[in-house]
């Protein structure tokens, strides 16, 4: 088990390094220096100073080493379009809103999705089942900007359609701002989880050990909770990773549409502004988030599935 965690951590470090390297070289070999474009009319000496400040006067491999060193120290660079603004500050300020939105929608998505999937499986070929299948297929077919637009149109009178609570407001006071974006974000997750859970429960119900448990006289609640759900939840854990990724990208659009001061909105803004250092910093941060959550999911898997603890590998 310990070796397994160590191995996973090793992979995580390698993957992060690959991401950082790719991001760095992609952003730095782009034709047209971002500063060059903005500073075209400045006198050469000032231009030189600015280039020096951002380190653009050094060769690329040197810049790469410096960038890595700075990253290790937690310094992710400074904005180009807003000089003096540290990437770290932006992330610290903007991430809480995104994190809240993300966590809420993962939570809502999981709970509703699993419940729907279980309901559908236990009521196979009834209207409940067909309804859940319908919702599941609709959920993966409708882009989340359409869902967001529909929510704004039809539930806009009940909940605020744009904005976010101030930082000092309590968790509960800000809740009303999160309702619509959370639904918009979690809709796809609900659909995916419901679909997978339904198949998975149907698989498990027909296993021999369920029959054994029933014939031993285990009460129905026990069979459902201990035997069926525990086994059926395993495939769900494997799709948690991709789902987290879809939530991260979902926040780009949802934050943009609901004017939420989160990191996703900032990311899209910095892409539009061609603010290269900020794109790099946020990319690396998002990648880190994603890779870390994959690690957590994998470790969770070992907790839920005892078979992995022995072999150290996924089935």
């Amino acid at each position: 088990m310990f070796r397994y965690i160590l191995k996973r951590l090793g992979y995580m470090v390698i993957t992060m390094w690959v991401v950082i390297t790719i991001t760095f070289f992609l952003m730095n070999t782009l034709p047209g220096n971002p500063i060059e474009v903005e500073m075209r009319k400045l006198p050469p000496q000032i231009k030189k100073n600015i280039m020096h400040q951002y380190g653009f006067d050094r060769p690329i491999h040197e810049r790469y080493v410096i960038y890595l060193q700075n990253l290790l120290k937690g310094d992710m660079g400074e904005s180009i379009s807003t000089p003096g603004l540290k990437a770290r500050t932006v992330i610290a300020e903007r991430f809480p809103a995104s994190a809240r939105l993300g966590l809420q929608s993962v939570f809502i998505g999981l709970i509703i999705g699993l419940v729907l999937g279980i309901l559908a499986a236990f009521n196979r070929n009834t209207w409940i089942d067909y309804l859940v299948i319908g919702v599941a297929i609709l959920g993966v077919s409708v882009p989340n900007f359409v869902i967001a637009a529909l929510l704004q149109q039809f539930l806009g009178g009940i909940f605020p359609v744009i904005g976010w609570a101030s930082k000092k407001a309590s968790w509960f006071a800000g809740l009303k701002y999160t309702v619509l974006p959370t639904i918009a974000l979690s809709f796809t997750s609900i659909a995916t989880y419901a679909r997978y859970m339904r198949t998975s429960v149907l698989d498990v119900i027909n296993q021999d050990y369920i029959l054994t448990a029933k014939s031993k006289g285990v009460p129905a609640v026990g069979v459902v909770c201990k035997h069926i759900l525990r086994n059926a939840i395993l495939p769900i854990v494997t799709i948690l990773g991709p789902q987290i990724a879809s939530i991260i990208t979902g926040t780009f659009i949802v934050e943009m549409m609901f004017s939420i001061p989160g990191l996703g909105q900032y990311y899209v803004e910095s892409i539009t502004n061609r603010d290269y250092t900020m794109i790099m910093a946020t990319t690396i941060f998002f990648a880190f988030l994603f890779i870390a959550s994959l690690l957590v999911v994998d470790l969770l898997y070992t907790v839920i599935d005892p078979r992995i603890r022995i072999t150290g590998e996924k089935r």
Partner: protein
Amino acid sequence: MMELDKDKFKIIGCENADADVIVRPNITYWQDAWRRLKQNKIAMVALVMLCIIIFMCLFGPYLAKYKFSDQDMSLIDKGPSAEHWFGTDNLGRDLFARVWIGGRVSIAIGIVGTLIEILVGCIYGGAAGYFGGLVDDIMMRIVEIIVSIPYMIVVILASIVLGKGIGALIIALCITGWTGIARIIRGQVMQLKESEYVLAARALGASSNRVILKHLIPNTIGEIIVYISFDIPSFIFAEAFLSFIGLGIQPPDTSWGAMASLAQPKFQFYPHELMVPSLAICLTMLSFNLLGDGLRDALDPRLRQ
């Protein structure tokens, strides 16, 4: 010694010698799959809907009274009417013409992107699964690392670097997307390469290339087709997403995502402008997903009982 004369060897009870004659014609795998698909009403509806959408994307622009790029500043943001069937957008362009032109781009990206992915994925996954051992180990470690890089972020980065336009967009979308199909193919090939017909082919002196191309890939074709039907919509989705945040198709070209992006800020006032491309996306995705479900049931021999 016993006399063994001829009449001791009389044939009895085999009058109907044609018992093992096959009455019905043999059907191939594809005929069987098609028969199963035809029985699935939902999948057939999806297939018909898809055909209609593709037909309209091909010929719809010629049916429209206006060119998709024609602007009419006196008719801005108008709702559907007899003149403009789906209404007009913020530059007075006919949405009926635009939605089909946009559909061409969206569906073309979906199809071309998927084909590239399948090609790369088949070669990569096929090689990894076939050679096994160290080669497989190294190749799959690389895939593992690529998979744990968030897809959309790579796509965004790539499209920043590659610039805008359809070609750049397809490359950006394919750059890491092939890993999914590579994994599927590898798993299948690992399973299949132990089977008898591969052994027979090898014993007959078939080369690795021939075994992969003629035996292993055709036997995974069912999985590939199912993958295609789920992959095309995910390309359309990704394209819509990129165009929506302003990285995708640029004017004067348009796509469903770009149209939705243009209409989104004014959705409260002119809902039809968002609804037309959104409905097109939803219907296409829905058809592909439903068709994919049907194809999986029809093509997967393990599901047959």
